[in-house]
């Protein structure tokens, strides 16, 4: 089955979403990521969405869910690399990703997670 790779860097998990996400892949990522947070005792999750040219309400909800699940598991989530056109569309769609931390790029996202820890 197709899966999105999850990399570990110290106490952080790094996920780079590079493919056009379909629904099953998004659900698999939620399962895999929560399992890895526990197994690796991760304190932070960084999700790089710079390759995504579309984030619809399904993917937006998945991102919110991951952030909420991570928080319950005592890990912080940062979403990085959102494209400007995606940001404009998401807000117009009615999704504001409340409660999800964002940063412009991976470097800033990592810095943010290091601070929180």
């Amino acid at each position, binding site marked *: 089955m197709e899966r999105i790779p999850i990399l570990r860097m110290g106490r952080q998990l790094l996920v780079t979403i590079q493919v056009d996400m379909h629904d099953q892949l998004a659900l698999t990522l939620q399962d895999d990521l929560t399992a890895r947070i526990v197994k690796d005792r991760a304190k932070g999750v960084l999700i790089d969405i710079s390759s995504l040219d*579309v984030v*619809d309400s399904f993917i937006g909800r998945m991102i919110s869910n991951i952030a909420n699940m991570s928080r319950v598991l005592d890990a912080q989530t940062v979403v990085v690399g959102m494209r400007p056109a995606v940001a*404009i569309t998401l807000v*117009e769609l009615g*999704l504001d990703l409340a409660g999800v931390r964002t940063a412009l790029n991976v470097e800033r996202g990592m810095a943010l997670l290091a601070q929180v820890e």
Partner: protein
Amino acid sequence: MRLRQVVRERAIAIGFSLVDQTKVVTAASELGRNTIQYGGGGHARVTLVESGARRGLRLEFIDKGPGIADVSLALTDGYTTGGGLGLGLSGAKRLSDEFAIQTAPGQGTQVTIVRWKNA
């Protein structure tokens, strides 16, 4: 989803800006998901439309599912019968220049949106 690629290609072909491409592809994704999830599958049609000097894309989503009894309720942000966020229909409407819905209980649903290219 294959639909998103087709819509993206057509939007690029008629010269939509990157933001407009993103909006119309996102709207297509929302409505396509509704067709599959609530309509039990159906078909989508993508058409180039012209009005004077304006050009745009018309997207139609047609299913033979259960239909919608209360359209204004279904268009309310946050209303869902499927466990989603309830933003699909209302969000797609906001992302479109024109929006029409034909539906009745037991009669299926047809949603038509148009997005015009900005001059």
